[in-house]
């Protein structure tokens, strides 16, 4: 891809029917109240992202050629958010979808919408863009009314053509483009379009980025080529704390094509003319360095114990509620302990960046989730002023959170600087990615519940031990870029801190969505653990939902209740009940049905972050008792994400979440010995393969009158409990430690 170029587009559109049939499952429409609008975040106020970037021309540009350029602060990570945002812009402007050109984030002019994370592109980014577009439309109508000499109220817009019943003439957006004053701030007195008039939002528009990706187009940062570009590779220490004790780069420098060998502290890299020459130089450089390692990691086999026994925990009460006078007496107490290991992002394409210096501006093309935040840390690490750094988003492989994307951007900048600012493209090797990416934190959970005589839960005590899920770049108090820690003058990482609820970090979804008369949720935050961690899809929700939903199942079984009925009994929110009922209907749930020793089914539920998408899952599994292998045959899902912008996009995200969640649940744990990470490739970190993937059936509960809710991660956390509950249903045994590999399955069955 050339700098600044846009992904190729097609003019083809597909009917909704084609997509409705293609996507597994169905869409049900619910209407709760009229008049609610797209993602309205605060009645009467502007959406936060628009409030932070009020100038309309930072969001939109109307061109005389007949198209609309949209500048969003959200980046395409392979989730299709740019297509959904284009739908929203086209909808509010009343133009054909094909006229919208989505521009990648560029810190020289795009709105700063912080990270693209937390399933917030539509909920936050969409509402901001929708308001900006509605504002622009109102300005255009004002101009048109003056031009045509008719009242604004008489105007209608059809694909950018403004006409009035009271005037013979018409005027188009494109004719007004040059005189449209978008260099003004958004106002909050502009109404959004009524959802009943939507033509584009709510339909499955084919993704803008897919055709180029399927035909070898220039779609990724990996595909960028600029004149004079060199190829860089890095050599990392073998372990987090390894010291460089000897280094001789004579042999590396003598290799063909090598332009530069870089050593700054324990940061090592090579720059070469050809990519295979950079690879060969990296291999020789690895042998040229002698490292001293030390025992610095915990015992992998006793990790849960290590977390619980930590003496450095910061203990906080996340939520507490005391019993009321009418709370029934407890007659029984149950306890369960659960564990989630470190999990890797494990992107298929190792992280990559291109950096070059021109006119004293360092430009970095990166698949970061936060171009503005990356720029902050690049400035700290390089000593350049913010204004002398430009970060432009270019797509990469799916990241699912904070992987090596930001780190490799600094690598590229350091290597480019070593060759006088010549453009250098750096891609990590597979073992760089596995060995150094920040993992999703390990977690230990303990639940204790008290039951009344009627079986209902009267008290819920929950303790959680985990590390940070937020060590992204751009935070105060340090630099969160790998190479910066290895320089001769090293920077420190920021002090780990917890993300406030309702979003939460390790404690995301630690507070159950169920209504218990008494509860206490306690977090033991462990900021001094030695393994590098940060944001991974759904953060702590994966471990917490595993514990909460497994234990709900255990309690239901203890009191002889059906797991569906037992959950409904403890919920107040009708939307929550609706998704549970919908999934039970769709899966033909039979209350009280027992598994046969090998086959079983289980249910789980989550309202993501307690304020986003509702999901309920039913897992159907088969257990091979001899081999110790669980096969998930089918997952049935029901989801309520409020107003659905693009049904096929949501289905794709839910399918992806379920498959990724099944992979985490059955297979994934980052392995390490006392010195170093030992999961370094796909053999030592296996993920779910094609023959192992479950069939998936999805019911979407559309709520056209309610705000869109973040949906990109919601279906992932309920996966492991659905499988573990199905395992219990099949075998009568509980799985409480992730992942459910052969050893654990066999141990549970003996």
């Amino acid at each position, binding site marked *: 891809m050339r700098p600044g170029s846009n992904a*190729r587009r*097609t003019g083809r559109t*597909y009917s909704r029917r*084609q*997509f409705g049939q*293609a996507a*597994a499952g169905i869409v049900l429409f619910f209407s709760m109240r009229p008049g609610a609008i797209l993602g309205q975040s605060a009645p009467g106020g502007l959406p936060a992202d628009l409030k932070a970037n009020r100038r309309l021309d930072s969001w939109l540009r109307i061109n005389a050629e007949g198209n609309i350029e949209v500048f969003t602060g959200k980046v395409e*990570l*392979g*989730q*299709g958010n740019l297509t959904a945002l284009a739908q929203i812009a086209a909808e509010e402007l009343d133009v054909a979808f094909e006229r919208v050109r989505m521009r990648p984030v560029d810190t020289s002019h795009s709105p700063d919408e912080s990270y693209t994370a937390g399933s917030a592109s539509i909920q936050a980014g969409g509402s901001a863009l929708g308001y900006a577009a509605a504002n622009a439309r109102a300005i255009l109508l004002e101009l048109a009314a003056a031009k045509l000499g008719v009242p604004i109220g008489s105007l209608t817009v059809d694909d950018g053509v403004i006409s009035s019943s009271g005037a013979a003439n018409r005027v188009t957006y494109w004719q007004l483009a040059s005189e449209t004053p978008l260099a003004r701030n958004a106002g909050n007195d502009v109404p959004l379009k009524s959802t009943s008039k939507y033509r584009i939002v709510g339909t*499955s528009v*084919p993704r803008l980025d*897919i*055709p*180029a*990706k*399927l*035909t*070898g*187009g*220039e*779609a*990724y940062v*990996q*595909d960028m*080529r600029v004149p004079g570009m060199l190829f860089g590779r890095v050599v990392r220490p073998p372990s987090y704390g390894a010291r460089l004790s000897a280094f001789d780069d004579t042999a590396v420098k003598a290799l*063909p094509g090598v332009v530069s060998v870089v050593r700054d502290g324990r940061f090592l890299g090579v720059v070469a003319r*050809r*990519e*295979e020459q950079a*690879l060969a130089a990296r291999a020789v450089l690895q042998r040229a360095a002698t490292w001293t390692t030390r025992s610095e990691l915990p015992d992998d086999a006793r990790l849960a114990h290590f977390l619980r026994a930590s003496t450095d925990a910061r203990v906080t009460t996340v939520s507490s509620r005391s019993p009321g006078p009418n709370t029934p007496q407890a007659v029984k107490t149950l306890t369960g302990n659960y564990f989630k290991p470190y999990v890797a992002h*494990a*992107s*298929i*394409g*190792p992280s990559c960046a291109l950096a070059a210096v021109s006119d004293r501006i360092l430009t970095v093309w990166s698949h970061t989730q936060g171009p503005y935040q990356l720029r902050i840390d690049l400035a700290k690490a390089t000593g350049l002023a913010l204004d002398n750094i430009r970060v432009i988003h270019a*797509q*990469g*492989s*799916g990241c699912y959170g904070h992987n090596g994307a930001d780190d490799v951007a600094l690598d590229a900048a350091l290597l480019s600087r070593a060759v006088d600012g010549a453009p250098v493209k750096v891609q990590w090797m*597979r073992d760089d990615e596995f060995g150094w990416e920040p993992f999703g934190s390990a977690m230990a959970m303990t639940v204790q519940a008290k039951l009344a005589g009627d079986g209902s839960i009267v008290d819920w005590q929950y303790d959680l031990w985990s590390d940070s899920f937020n060590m992204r770049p751009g935070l105060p108090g340090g630099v969160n870029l790998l190479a910066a820690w290895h320089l001769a003058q090293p920077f420190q990482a920021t002090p780990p801190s917890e993300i406030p609820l309702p979003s939460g970090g390790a404690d995301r979804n630690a507070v159950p969505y169920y209504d218990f008369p008494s509860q206490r949720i306690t977090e033991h935050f462990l900021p001094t653990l030695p393994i590098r961690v940060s944001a991974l899809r759904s953060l702590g929700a994966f471990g917490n939902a595993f514990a909460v939903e497994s234990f709900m199942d255990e309690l239901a079984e203890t009191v002889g209740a059906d797991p569906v009925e037992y959950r409904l009994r403890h919920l107040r929110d009708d939307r929550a009940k609706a998704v549970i009922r919908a999934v039970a209907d769709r899966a033909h749930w039979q209350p009280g049905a027992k598994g046969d020793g090998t086959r079983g089914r289980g249910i789980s539920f989550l309202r993501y972050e307690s304020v986003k998408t509702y999901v309920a899952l039913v897992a159907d599994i088969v257990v091979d008792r001899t081999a110790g292998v669980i096969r998930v045959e089918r997952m049935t899902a029901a989801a309520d994400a409020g107003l659905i912008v693009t049904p096929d996009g949501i289905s*794709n*995200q839910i*399918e*992806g979440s*379920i*498959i*990724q969640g099944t*992979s985490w649940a059955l297979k994934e744990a980052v392995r390490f010995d006392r010195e170093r990470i030992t999961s370094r*490739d*796909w*053999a030592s970190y296996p*993920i779910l*393969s*094609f*023959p192992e*993937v479950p*069939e*998936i059936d999805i019911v979407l509960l559309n709520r056209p009158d309610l705000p869109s809710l973040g949906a990109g991660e919601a279906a992932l956390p309920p996966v492991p409990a659905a499988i573990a509950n199905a395992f219990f249903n099949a075998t009568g045994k509980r799985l409480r430690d992730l992942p459910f590999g052969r050893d654990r399955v066999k141990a549970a069955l003996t």
Partner: protein
Amino acid sequence: MPETFRIQVNGVEHSVTADGDTPLLYVLRNDLGLNGPKFGCGLEQCGACTAIVGAEAIRTCVFPLSAVGSAPVVTLEGLGTVEEPHPLQKAFIAEQAAQCGYCINGMIMTAKALLDRNPRPTRTEIRQALARNLCRCGTHLRIVRAIENAAKGAVP
């Protein structure tokens, strides 16, 4: 030592000067400017780099340039374009069978080799043929459906 090799890629003969043990992947991407084959692992574990050499789906990240010889090489670009997609590409677009799309080159090229030797595979045979191709986004089911549809000629 660099040598000059003549290789046929997507129906066109190219002259390439590089070490004979250079993985074909880098020649395709950097000398010929092709984007289809992707670097994923360099260990023939994930399949992102797949191209067809002769009649076989090959992991180009470990396949040396010198081993290509006179065998024709076909990459994703050799199948079709945005304007005129190959039936497999068309089927993948119709199913929206991609999230990030980084692995998809390997899926389509492996499927092409499969359909060339077995034009009507069962769903199980498709899953087996892709057993060594990794997808992280979880697009597996759409990929399988797209290949089924392409095999059936059921793409609009």
